C-alpha cells in the first residue's frame, strides 16, 4: 500500500484489523465516500495488491481461503441513511449502515426489511447484499434479492457506478443490483443500496412442537406445508433439547391466532404457542447457531445443503447417514420446508482435519445439489472450494470477473471456482 494514500481515514473499525480466515491484513483503510473507495481500489489495482471489503465483520469466514490478502477496506465510514420516504416504502442506506440502526429507523415508521441472519444488528447493509445470506423467513418474505431496487458500487477501474433506482418497479437497463447480490464483493465494493421496504406485520405468533425423532418432526412439518396454511417460516430439525417442527405466522391478530390453532392441530405432539415478542426471541435464538465463525480453536463446521423442496426430508435422512459414516456429530440441524435448504452445525468426533472435511463435502455432494461449507477452521480449507461443485456457467462468471476486476483486486480466490 503506498504511503501517499491520502484517502485513508482512521475509524473505530480500523483500530484493530479484522481477522479474515485466520489472516490479518497488513493494512486497514476506511474511505469516507464512494469516490474514495474507487480511488483506493484503483491505486491497489495499479500496485497489484489484493483487498477484502469488510462491513460488520460478522461473516468474514465465508469464502475460500484468500489467495492473497494485503488490505482490508472497511465500509465503516460509509454508514447512514441516505434517503427515506416512508410513504414510498423505499429506503437508501450507505453500505456501512448497521442493520440494527436501519431497522430501528424503519420501525419508527411501522416498516421493516424482513431479513434474518445471525448477528443481524451488527451486520451491515453492504455485507448483507454481498453475502446473500438468508433465514427461515425466506419462505414467506423472500430475500434481500427480492427487495433490492438500486445500488451504487465502486470499481477497481476507479469509477463509481449506479444501477436501478429508488422506485419499486424498474426495467431501465440490465438488472445489475441483483447480479451484485451474493457476489461476495468480487465485482466491486458496494457503496450504498436501495431497498423496497414492507409494513411491519400487525401481529405474529409461532408454534413449536417437540418430537421424539427426526422422522416425526419432518412428517409434521410436511403436513403443515401441504395444508392451506401459509406460514412465513416453517422449519423442522434439531435445536436445543431435541427434534422440533416450528411455524411462524404474520398478519392480523385474529387471523394469526386462528392459523396458530390450526397449526397446533396439524403438528400434533406437544405444541407450544409463542406471542409476538416471544416469537421474535425464539427465531433469534434459533438462528444463533447459524453464525459464521472460523477460528482454529473452535473446530466446528457450519454446512448448508440444498435440494429441490420436495426432497428436503430425504436430504435430512441422508445427512444423518453421512454424518454417522463420517463420524460427525450434529449439534444443530435446521431444515427449511418449502425451500429445500438444510443448515447443519457439528463437530468431528476425532477432532477433524482438512481430509475429513473434504471427504464430508464429497459425500454430501453425492446427496445434495448444492453444498456450501459456510464456516470451518481456516486450516481445513486449504485447496478446498467451499462453494462445492463449480457451476456449468463458470466461464461466463470468469469473464464477468474479468470485465469488472481484471487485476483480481477484490477478494481474490474467495468466490466460487476460485474467482
Amino acid at each position, binding site marked *: 500500500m503506498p504511503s501517499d494514500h491520502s484517502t485513508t481515514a482512521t475509524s473505530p473499525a480500523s483500530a484493530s484489523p479484522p481477522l479474515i480466515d485466520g489472516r490479518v491484513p497488513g493494512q486497514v483503510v476506511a474511505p469516507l465516500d464512494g469516490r474514495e473507495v474507487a480511488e483506493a481500489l484503483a491505486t491497489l489495482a495499479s500496485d497489484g495488491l489484493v483487498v477484502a471489503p469488510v462491513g460488520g465483520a460478522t461473516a468474514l469466514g465465508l469464502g475460500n481461503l484468500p489467495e492473497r490478502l494485503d488490505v482490508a477496506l472497511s465500509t465503516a465510514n460509509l454508514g447512514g441513511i441516505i434517503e427515506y420516504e416512508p410513504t414510498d416504502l423505499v429506503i437508501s442506506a450507505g453500505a456501512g449502515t448497521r442493520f440494527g440502526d436501519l431497522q430501528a429507523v424503519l420501525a419508527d415508521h411501522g416498516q421493516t426489511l424482513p431479513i434474518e441472519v445471525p448477528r443481524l444488528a451488527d451486520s451491515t447493509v453492504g455485507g448483507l447484499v454481498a453475502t446473500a445470506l438468508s433465514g427461515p423467513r425466506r419462505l414467506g418474505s423472500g430475500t434481500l434479492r427480492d427487495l433490492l431496487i438500486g445500488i451504487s458500487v465502486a470499481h477497481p477501474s476507479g469509477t463509481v457506478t449506479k444501477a436501478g433506482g429508488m422506485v*419499486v*418497479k424498474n426495467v431501465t437497463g*440490465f438488472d445489475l443490483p441483483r447480479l451484485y447480490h451474493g457476489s461476495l464483493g468480487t465485482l466491486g465494493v458496494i457503496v450504498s443500496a436501495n431497498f423496497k421496504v414492507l409494513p411491519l406485520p400487525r401481529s405474529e405468533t409461532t408454534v413449536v412442537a417437540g418430537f421424539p425423532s427426526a422422522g416425526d418432526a419432518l412428517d409434521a412439518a410436511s403436513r403443515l406445508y401441504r395444508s392451506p396454511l401459509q406460514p412465513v417460516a416453517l422449519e423442522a430439525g434439531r435445536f436445543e433439547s431435541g427434534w422440533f417442527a416450528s411455524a411462524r405466522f404474520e398478519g392480523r391478530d385474529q387471523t394469526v391466532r386462528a392459523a396458530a390453532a390450526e397449526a397446533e392441530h396439524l403438528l400434533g405432539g406437544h405444541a407450544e404457542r409463542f406471542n409476538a415478542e416471544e416469537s421474535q426471541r425464539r427465531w433469534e435464538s434459533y438462528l444463533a447457531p447459524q453464525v459464521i465463525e472460523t477460528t482454529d480453536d473452535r473446530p466446528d463446521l457450519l454446512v448448508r445443503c*440444498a435440494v429441490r423442496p420436495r426432497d428436503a426430508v430425504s436430504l435430512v435422512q441422508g445427512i444423518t447417514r453421512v454424518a454417522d459414516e463420517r463420524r460427525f456429530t450434529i449439534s444443530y440441524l435446521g431444515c427449511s420446508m418449502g425451500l*429445500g435448504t438444510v443448515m447443519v452445525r457439528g463437530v468431528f468426533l476425532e477432532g477433524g482435519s482438512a481430509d475429513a472435511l473434504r471427504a464430508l463435502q464429497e459425500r454430501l455432494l453425492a446427496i445434495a445439489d448444492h453444498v456450501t461449507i459456510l464456516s470451518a477452521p481456516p486450516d481445513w480449507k486449504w485447496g478446498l472450494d467451499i462453494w462445492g461443485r*463449480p457451476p456449468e456457467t463458470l466461464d461466463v462468471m470468469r*469473464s464477468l470477473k474479468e470485465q*469488472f476486476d*481484471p487485476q483480481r483486486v477484490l477478494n481474490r480466490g474467495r468466490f466460487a471456482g476460485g474467482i
Partner: protein
Amino acid sequence: MDHAGLVQRLERILGPGGVFHRPGDLLVYEYDGSVDGAVDTARPAAVALPTTTEQVAAVVKLANEAGLPVVARGAGTGLSGGAVAQQGGIIISLTRMDRILEIDREDRTALVEPGVINLELSETALPEGFFFAPDPSSQKACTVGGNVAENSGGPHCLKYGVTTNHVLGLEVVLPDGRVVWTGGRAPGGSGYDLTAAMVGSEGMLGIVTKALVRLTPQPESVVVLLAAFGDMDAASHAVSGIIAAGIVPAALEMMDALTIEAVEPAYHAGYPMDAGAVLLIELDGPTGDVRETADEVSTLCRQAGATEVRTASEKAERDLLWKGRKMALAAMGRLAPNYYLHDTVVPRSKLPATLRRVGEVSKEYDLPIANVFHAGDGNLHPLMLFDRRRKGSVERVLEASHDLLHYCVEVGGALSGEHGIGTEKRDYMTLVFTADDLAAMAGVKNSFDPRGCFNPEKLFPKGYMCGEVRALRAQAMAQKLGIYAL
C-alpha cells in the same frame, strides 16, 4: 452465405415449415406491439421457428457462421421495439416451443417452454391451487419467455413482485450456441446470479429455452373495491393513505375520467361516468384479514374524499370491475384512431405532482392524454391519443413524451417500469445513467456476448456498443489501470 443458402441451411435444421423467408411472411415480424413511428421497424433475413432447444442452438451456431445477428421473439406484444431485428439477421420465434412441461405442487414450480402464453400457465396451475403472479395486460397473448426477457410486471406485482421474483432457473442458449442452465430447483447455487442477469436483459445475453418459475398459492379470499373520486388528486391521496396505513393490496390501479369515458360505454364495468378518477383496489389473503382490511380501505378512501365505494367479493362481480381496466387500451379506439402508451415510474409520493404535469403536457401539446395505471407502485401509463393521418401528430406525441420522461427522471423516477428500453428509449439512457454506469452494463453484455450478435442496437444509446466505441473504451480503461496489454 447468400439468402437462398441461408434459407436452405435453416430448413435443414428446422424443416421447410420451420422457416419464413418470403417478404409477405416476414412482414408481421418487422413490428412489435408499439405504435408505428415510435420505434423503428426492420425486416429480418429469415424467421426460424424451432420446436426444440437443440434447434435453437443449431440456428444460433449457423448465425455465427454466417455472421448474422440473432433476435429472439415471443408473441411480439412488446412495446419498446425489443423484438424487432434492427440489423436484420435471423429472428428466432419461440412461439412453437409452447409446452408446459411440469407443474409441481410440492415444489410449487412450473417448468415451461418460452412460448407458453402467460395466462395459459395460470389457468393450468389453477386446479392445483396456484397461479403465476406476473400478469401484464397482454397476458392473454404474451409469452413467458417474453416476460423473462422484459422482466414484465402487471397489476398484481404490487404485492407479488415482478417476473424476476418468480424465476428460479433458466435453460439458456448462449451466443456461442452452448446450452446451459442458470439457477435451478434447489436454492443456493454457487457463483454469480446469472438468472438475475438474464431476467430483463431484453434478449441481449442469451435465449431462454426453458424457464423454471415459481407458482404462488391462490389466496383463500379475494375482494375488489371500486372507489370513485372527484379528481385524480383525491384518488392519489387515497393511495398514499392506504400505503401509509401499512396495507399492501394485491393490486391498486387508477383510471381517470377520459379512460372511464372510453371504457364504460363499451364494457359496462359499472364505473361512475361522472367520476374524475376511480381506484380499483384488490385485497387478498385469509378471509378474516381481507374482510377487516376491506373495511379499513373503504374508510380511508372516504376520508380522502371518495364519492362512492363499492365492494365486490363474488368472482363474477370482481371480473366485471377488472374487465374495464383490462380492456382499457382496446377501448381507446372509441376516442381516437391511435394511441401511444407510455411507461414511466415515479416515487409514489410524486404521483399527484406528476399527474398534474401530465395534464399540463396534454394542454401544451393539445393532445388528449388518458391515464390508466398501476398507482400502487407509481408506475404511470399515460395514453396519448392522436390521429396519425394528421400531419405532424406523431412528432407531437414524441415531443410530449420526451417532456414527460424528463419530468419523471427529474423527480427521481425511471425510464421504464415494465416495458423495457429496446430501441424506444435507448437514447434516453443517458438521462439516468452516466457513461460509467453504462460501461458496467456493457461489461455484462461483453461477458455473455463478446461479439454482440444477440439483439444488437438495443438498450444502449445509438452507437454505444459498436466496435469502435468499445475499442476506445477498452483503451481508456487500460490507460487508467496502467496496463497496455488489453
